[in-house]
């Protein structure tokens, strides 16, 4: 009898013993599933093929297909970047928060912009009423950006900016501030989110229709590959897809499908795969279901490596690596008993680290109530530091690799991801799928099912539908001063009064001309406009006029 047959024989014996136990002590539920509904075995056992496919399916850290991690030494070489997403109110207030975070041992910056900035409206635009400085910092002009990074040497930090539709403009602001600091473009390190497709699917801060939006993205790829070579030109994001209620599989599948669409667009624009693919980065959610999440990250790396090698024939290993940022799941945080959120975030942090993330934001306990207070942000950062320095999980690479449960879930998520990718390919790619409302509907159905389970008490949310207590209203919540819009408008008016009208006019006119000619790269003209103190809204309005605006296809 082979070893495997011996094991199977023993398993049958064990299972019959278990059956006897079950008759007396049934399990807690008729079926156990992951958070996304993948059925779980009671225990995972060796499979016949496990070692046979090791090199093909897992390989070594830093080797194809990168299941076990993108670097050969992973966290034994360098820990992940601890990068807390922050920004609110004015540039001055946010600048102070960044300096505080850096003083507390944070290793990278992550800028949150307010919604008017994200949608390309100036603070004095009527659309901006009520929103200025609320969910991030308000940036109208280069002047605001200079204040935001005052005293922070841009050649020494890496900065991530959550900006999509107007990403080219904010990148231009950043480059212009760096130049004023005497830092050249090629020294800049950081990331712009620049992922418009998931805005249509789940996040909502779109401006232009898909075609010109994707042109802006490929213009950024082309410009940065030469001028800003260490910049991550896009962060293809599953985070918001998951927050909107998708399953873990949908998060991976729709994100990679978005990635495939960008790669196709860049190739169609005449770029060589290895000139831009190494600067593509990803952004995932880390949810509560620890094992499923670890498997998800591993599966995502494996699928992307295969896509890049087999479909797009990338040759440079960097083009095959799925490098990603992670954020813990905001949607899992509860307004009830908010301190419990610290524990949720700790579990999600473990999942991200066991899954091999390159950088991490940990959410603060009070985010279901308001913007996080300084104390809450510190606890969130300390959570990462405890996992990094005390838990030991960073000291060996992919510590859950080889676990029967993890490998089986990794295979399963991979398989279901391919099925979605094939389906999306068959309808002509992600832009078509989005226009038909397909991913939106899939996500919404998943979200609806989960909420129904919570309402029915079938899915326990501690402190919400079980283990509840009577609570007092929370104290010490951070509020943004509602007078802030007025302050910001006054600053904006000063900038408008102090600039050269002729220079401004000329650069906006050049922008308009360039927008009409898709063979021209828009980045140099946008950079020139921001240096002449054109506002974000003025630049975006020229582009709105030329490109038109996207209309949501409502799916219910």
């Amino acid at each position, binding site marked *: 009898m082979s070893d495997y047959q011996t094991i199977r024989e023993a398993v049958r014996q064990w299972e019959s013993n278990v059956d006897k136990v079950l008759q007396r002590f049934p399990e807690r539920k008729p079926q156990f599933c992951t958070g996304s509904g993948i059925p779980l075995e009671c225990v995972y056992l060796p499979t016949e093929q496990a070692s046979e496919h090791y090199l093909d399916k897992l390989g070594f850290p830093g080797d194809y297909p990168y299941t076990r991690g993108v670097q050969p030494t992973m966290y034994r070489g360098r820990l992940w970047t601890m990068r807390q997403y922050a920004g609110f109110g004015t540039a001055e207030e946010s600048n102070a928060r960044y300096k505080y975070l850096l003083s507390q041992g944070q290793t990278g910056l992550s800028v949150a912009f307010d919604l008017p900035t*994200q949608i390309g409206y100036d603070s004095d635009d009527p659309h901006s009423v009520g*929103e200025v400085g609320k969910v991030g910092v308000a940036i109208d002009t280069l002047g605001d950006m200079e204040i935001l990074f005052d005293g922070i040497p841009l050649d020494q930090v890496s900065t991530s900016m959550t900006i999509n539709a107007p990403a080219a403009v904010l990148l231009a602001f950043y480059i212009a501030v760096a130049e004023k600091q005497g830092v050249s473009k090629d020294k800049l390190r950081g990331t712009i989110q620049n992922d418009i497709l998931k*805005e249509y699917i789940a996040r*909502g801060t779109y401006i232009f229709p898909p075609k010109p939006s994707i042109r802006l993205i490929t213009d950024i790829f082309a410009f940065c590959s030469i001028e800003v070579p260490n910049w991550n030109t896009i962060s293809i994001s599953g985070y918001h897809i998951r927050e909107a209620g998708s399953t873990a599989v949908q998060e991976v599948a729709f994100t990679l499908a978005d990635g495939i669409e960008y790669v196709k667009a860049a190739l169609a624009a005449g770029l060589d795969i290895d000139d831009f693919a190494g600067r593509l980065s990803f952004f995932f959610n880390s949810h509560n279901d620890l094992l499923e999440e670890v498997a998800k990250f591993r599966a995502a790396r494996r699928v992307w490596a295969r896509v890049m090698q087999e479909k797009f024939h990338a040759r440079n290993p960097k083009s095959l690596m799925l490098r990603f940022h992670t954020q813990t799941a905001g949607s899992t945080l509860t307004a009830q008993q908010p301190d419990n959120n610290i524990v949720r975030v700790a579990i999600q942090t473990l999942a991200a680290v066991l899954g091999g993330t390159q950088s991490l934001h940990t959410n603060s306990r009070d985010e279901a109530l*308001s913007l996080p207070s300084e104390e809450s942000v510190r606890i969130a950062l300390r959570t990462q530091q405890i996992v990094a320095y005390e838990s030991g999980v960073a000291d060996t690479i992919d510590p859950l690799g080889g676990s029967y449960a993890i490998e089986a879930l990794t295979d399963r998520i991979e398989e279901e991801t391919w099925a979605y990718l094939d389906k999306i390919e068959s309808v002509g790619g992600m832009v078509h799928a989005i226009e038909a409302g397909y991913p939106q509907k899939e996500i919404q159905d998943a979200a609806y099912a989960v909420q129904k389970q919570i309402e029915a008490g079938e899915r326990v949310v501690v402190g919400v539908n079980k283990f509840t207590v009577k609570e007092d209203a929370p104290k010490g*919540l951070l*509020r943004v001063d*509602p007078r802030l819009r007025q302050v910001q408008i006054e600053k904006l008016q000063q900038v408008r009064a102090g600039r050269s009208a002729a220079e401004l006019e000329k650069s906006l006119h050049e922008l308009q001309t360039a927008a009409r000619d898709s063979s021209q790269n828009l980045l140099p003209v946008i950079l020139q406009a921001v240096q002449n103190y054109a506002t974000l809204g003025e630049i975006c309005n020229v582009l709105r006029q030329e490109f038109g605006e996207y209309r949501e296809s409502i799916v*219910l």
Partner: protein
Amino acid sequence: MERKIRILIAKPGLDGHDRGAKYIARALKDAGYEVIYTGIRQSPESIVRTALQEDVDFVGLSLLSGAHNELFPAVVDELQRQGAQDVVVFGGGVIPDSDIAYLRDKGVEAVFTPGTSISAVIDFIEANRERVVSR
């Protein structure tokens, strides 16, 4: 036969977090109401225009960006300007307890915060049924 209650679920402001709004819309539809959803990024004026066109009894506003103190009352005021003050307005989202009294004072009749069960929303609608069907 009892007239079906008509509800508009709307998203004023600029935030794209529509998971809650879509859940409420769908769950209310499942509970037997006529429900219309505006989609995201609607101005108070366009919300009221839709409310009038669709002749709704309730407008439910969802906002997660923190702009509720400005935008919820703007919808109530615009309804009044258009002579539709009998439409009942309620709201939900990440709204601090300390803002709820202000919003109620401004004519937002109920505010539902995270973790509220759909039955609480249905109870509120049913408690106002007589009032809206007799308008």
